[in-house]
C-alpha cells in the first residue's frame, strides 16, 4: 500500500530524516514510536507531502507522491490525517466539518454528503453532536469528529500524529477505542503514538525511530517486549508505564 524509499528531509542544515525505508501493507497497522524530536511527525507529514521531502520516493497505492507530475490533491483524498491539535474548522458544525471536503472536493451533493457524514459521526459515537460547533465539544469529542472528517473522504490510508497527546487523560480512552475499531475494520494505518498499550494491542508492527532513522522494527512483542538495540531499550525504560 505504501512504499517509502531513501526518504530524507532537512530543515536548513538540520537533517531530520536520514534515508528512511518503510513498507506498509494493505490493512496493516504500523505504530511509530520514539523520543521527542526524533522526526516522527516530519516523517508522517512527508507521506502526504504536508512537508516537502528533500529526497527519496514515496508510493501510495501505486501513485508516486513525490513526482512533480502527481496530482497531490487527488492523492491526499486517499489519505486521511488526524492531528495532535484536532484542527477542526471552528466556523463549522461537527456535520459541517465532516461534509465540507466531500462536497467541495469529491463533489457529492449535499444530501449524499450529509448522509455519509452522519454515518461517520455515528461510527465515532457522535451522531447526536452533529449540530454542535467544535468549541462546544470536549477534546475527545473534537478528536473523534476529526477522525470522522477524515473517514468521510473514504481514504485508503489513515495517518495519526499523536492523536491523543493533547487530551486530558480521562478522554484518551474514547479516542483510542475509535482507533481500535478502525484498525479492526481493516483500515491501513500509520500511527505515531506515545501510547505503548495501544501499540502493543493494536499494531501489527512497531517502528522505533531515533535521530531521523528507523533504529528497529518488528512485532509489538519483539520491539516492546524484547528490544535488541540499546537506544530502544533506553527509550522504553524511560517511558515504561
Amino acid at each position: 500500500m505504501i512504499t517509502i524509499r531513501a526518504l530524507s528531509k532537512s530543515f536548513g542544515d538540520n537533517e531530520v530524516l536520514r534515508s528512511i525505508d518503510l513498507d506498509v501493507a494493505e490493512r496493516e497497522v504500523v505504530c511509530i514510536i520514539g523520543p521527542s524530536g526524533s522526526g516522527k511527525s516530519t516523517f508522517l507529514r512527508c507521506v502526504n507531502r504536508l512537508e516537502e521531502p528533500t529526497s527519496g520516493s514515496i508510493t501510495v497505492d501505486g501513485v508516486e507522491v513525490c513526482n512533480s507530475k502527481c496530482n497531490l490533491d487527488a492523492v491526499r483524498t486517499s489519505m486521511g490525517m488526524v492531528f495532535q491539535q484536532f484542527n477542526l474548522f471552528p466556523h463549522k458544525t461537527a456535520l459541517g466539518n465532516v461534509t465540507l471536503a466531500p462536497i467541495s472536493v469529491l463533489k457529492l451533493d449535499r444530501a449524499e454528503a450529509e448522509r455519509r457524514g452522519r454515518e461517520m459521526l455515528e461510527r465515532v459515537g457522535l451522531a447526536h453532536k452533529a449540530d454542535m460547533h467544535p468549541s462546544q465539544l470536549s477534546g475527545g469529542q473534537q478528536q473523534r469528529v476529526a477522525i470522522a472528517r477524515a473517514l468521510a473522504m473514504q481514504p485508503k490510508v489513515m495517518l495519526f500524529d499523536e492523536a491523543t497527546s493533547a487530551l486530558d487523560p480521562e478522554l484518551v480512552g474514547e479516542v483510542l477505542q475509535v482507533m481500535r475499531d478502525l484498525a479492526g475494520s481493516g483500515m491501513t494505518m500509520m500511527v505515531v503514538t506515545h501510547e505503548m498499550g495501544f501499540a502493543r494491542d493494536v499494531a501489527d508492527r512497531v517502528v522505533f525511530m531515533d535521530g531521523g532513522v528507523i533504529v528497529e522494527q518488528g512485532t509489538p512483542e519483539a520491539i516492546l517486549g524484547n528490544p535488541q538495540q540499546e537506544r530502544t531499550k533506553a527509550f522504553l525504560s524511560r517511558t515504561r508505564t
Partner: protein
Amino acid sequence: MMAAPMILAGVGDEFFNGRILREMLPGIVTEAMRNTVVYTVFAFSAGIVLGLLLALARISRRWWLRTFAATFIDTIRGLPALLVIVIIGYGFPIAYKGVTGNFWRWPFGSFGSKYLPGCFSLSLVAAAYMAESIRAGIEAVPRGQMEAARSLGMTQGKAMRKVILPQAFRIIIPPLTNELAALFKDTSLIAVLGVGVGGREILQYARTFSNATGKTTPLVAGGIAYLVITIPLLQLVSYLDRRAKRGTR
C-alpha cells in the same frame, strides 16, 4: 458682567447662526451627506476587493507577486493620502484627456466625471490599508487549519475560500469597521479635486457656504454631519472589539 451675554451672542452668530443653518438645509443631507456616503461605499467596496487581492498577493508563494504587493502597499501607506488623491484624481484625467476625450467620463458617463476621480483614488488608499488588516487576519488563523484542509485534498485556493477566509473575516471585522469610519472622514480629501455642484461631499459643501457667508457656522454644520455617522460607527467598533475579546464564536 455685561460681557458674558455679548460674548455668547457673538459665538452664537459666528458658529451657530440659525439663518445660515436653515439655508444649508436640505442640501447638507441630500447632496453633501449623500455624496459622502456614496464616496465611502464606493471606495470601501472597491478597496475591500482590491485589498483582498493585495493581501493574497502579499502572502503568495511567488516572489514577484509578494514584491509587487508589498511595494504598492508601502508606497501608498507611506504617502499622505491627500497627495495620492491629487496625483491620481487630478493628474490622470488631465494626462489621459487626449486619449479618451475624458478619462473618467469614458466608461461611466456623467457619473464617471462627477464621482470617479475621487472615488478611485480613495479606493487605492483604502485598499492599501485594508490589505494590511486582511493579511493580519489571514495570518492570525492557525497554520493547522490550512494543513487540515490540504490534507483533505482541498486545493490551496479552495482551502483559502472555504476555511481560512471565513475565519479571517471574523477576526478583521473590527479593524475593517474602523477603516470604514476613517474612510468616511477621508472622503473630505476629495474636496481638493473641486467637484462641481451636485457632486460635493460634506466638507466642500460646507466650504462653499462658509466662503459665501464669511461665517464658521457652515463648517460646524459639516462637522455635525460627520459626527452623526462616525460616532455610531466608532461605538460599533468598540462593541465589536469587546465582543471579539470575549471570544465568542
